[in-house]
């Protein structure tokens, strides 16, 4: 029974990793670059929500703190805007200047630049100490056949899986999804067919911002403690999950993210908190040895991803 309880908690924790892993895998699958701004975007959402809930809007627009739920929504919006700014200056701007559409080193390096910028702005204004987010409820949970299900955790699992399901559905069946898949396969062909590639690519960054923002909001509600560095830990595990599941594959990222969540909780339960990293990265190593393309990955990355 305890084991089942642990696995369920792991799945619920995994829900957060799933969203971040999907954000990573989407950018890799579509644009062929590892977006290093995902960890700071995750952090930005949490820290901005915290700041709004604590101080309110600046320049006297509101006097004093604003409602925590409103703060979280504004935090998600700020994250989406930040992600679009990143697109403007990492992907589009640099690509226009230097040519090659598949050149992924330039956006990769400049996204590392944004990682430093975002993290340091937050440190300058709010410090590097962990802070407490004012969620008005604590340990609300359902009891269910002797299992304890935390409602915020349950909500995070349901929300993340449904967002990912919706995203996958959109990519599979809608027109914009079809256009996005064409760009993912071959931007040059998409241009020949008359696709406005530069108008469509921001959509991917909008989705990335949304995924990071929502994941971060769920994390904040669940753990209530946020800092300028929360993105790093979560994103590292999400990357591990993404690689375990298979690069560029959405459902692979889902499976990998959930697996990492379960692994984390189980290793805390059996061996203590110090062993989390060993088991997560150990699992990654094992997968890389047995099945280097990941559980759901194709050998040829860049084809039939969704």
């Amino acid at each position, binding site marked *: 029974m305890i084991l089942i309880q642990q696995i369920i908690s792991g799945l619920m924790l995994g829900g957060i990793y799933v969203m971040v892993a999907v954000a990573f895998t989407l950018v890799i699958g579509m644009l062929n670059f590892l977006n290093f701004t995902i960890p700071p975007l995750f952090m930005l959402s949490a820290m901005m929500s915290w700041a709004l809930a604590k101080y309110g809007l600046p320049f006297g627009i509101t006097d004093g703190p604003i409602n925590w739920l409103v703060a979280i929504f504004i935090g998600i919006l700020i994250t989406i805007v930040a992600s679009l700014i990143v697109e403007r200056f990492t992907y589009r701007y640099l690509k226009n200047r230097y040519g090659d559409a598949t050149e992924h080193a330039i956006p990769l390096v400049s996204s590392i630049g944004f990682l430093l910028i975002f993290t340091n702005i937050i440190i300058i204004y709010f410090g590097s100490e962990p802070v407490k987010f004012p969620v008005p409820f604590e340990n609300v949970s359902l009891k269910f056949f002797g299992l304890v299900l935390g409602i915020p955790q349950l909500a995070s699992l349901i929300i993340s899986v449904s967002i990912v399901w919706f995203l996958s559905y959109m990519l599979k069946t809608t027109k914009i999804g079809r256009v996005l898949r064409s760009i993912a396969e071959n931007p040059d062909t998409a241009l020949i067919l*008359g696709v406005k590639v530069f108008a469509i690519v921001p959509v991917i960054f909008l989705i990335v911002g949304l995924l990071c923002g929502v994941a971060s909001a769920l994390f904040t509600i669940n753990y209530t403690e946020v800092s300028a560095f929360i993105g790093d830990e979560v994103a590292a595990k999400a990357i591990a999950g993404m690689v375990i599941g298979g690069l560029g594959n959405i459902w692979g990222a889902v499976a990998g993210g959930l697996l990492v969540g379960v692994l984390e909780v189980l290793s805390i339960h059996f061996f203590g908190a110090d062993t989390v990293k060993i088991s997560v990265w150990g699992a990654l190593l094992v997968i890389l040895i047995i099945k280097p393309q990941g559980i759901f990955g194709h050998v040829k990355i860049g084809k*039939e991803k969704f």
Partner: protein
Amino acid sequence: MILSVEKLLVKYGTNIAVDQIDIQVDKGEVVCILGANGAGKSSLLRALLGHTKSSGIVKFKDNDVSSHSATQRVRDGLVLVPEGRKILTSLSVEENLLMGAHLRYDKDIYTDIKKVYEMFPNLSTRSFMSASVLSGGEQQMLAVGRALLAKPSLLMLDEPSLGLSPLIVEELFGVIQTLNREGMSILIVEQNARKALQVSNRAYVMELGKIVQKGISKDLMSDEKIVSAYLGSE
């Protein structure tokens, strides 16, 4: 006149790929451009589509489209079947066709898809399969079908016979002739000069980015220089 090109220049750095050429295509005409590898034929088509930077004047349906983007030109009906077919293999056959129609918002898209399936029955039996299972010939048919779904006024084909068996090439050029009989203007770039001259009304010969000869296709077929350079003895 559906397409008129004046002094088109395409440069890659200091290399001149297309050197100030003039081309015209009349409504309902099939025009072919012959030339060896590296003559600048593909650069010319890409520049016409607005996909490659160029200078000079491109007039399409009596409008100056030189400053228009590829999207605008495709929407106007200037459509390219690219070299090497460029089928999207992660999409199904039908999705590839739908990508051809992605700039259209009218209700006839599915009627037009049906027409393409009637024209190429092989595609209809595989409509929901991945486009990667198609043979080379079927991929070329899909590329043509995809271009047709953009409702072209001028269909440009870049090396359509490349890598296809003679039987398929026959079928393909048959399709091109049928389309032309229905009134479509067509611009073909080909290395298979014999076939291209057979189906076209007029032809241009390109060498190192320049037009070195032009004329009625039938005349060019008996021109000694053309015969020795492009047709060979048979």
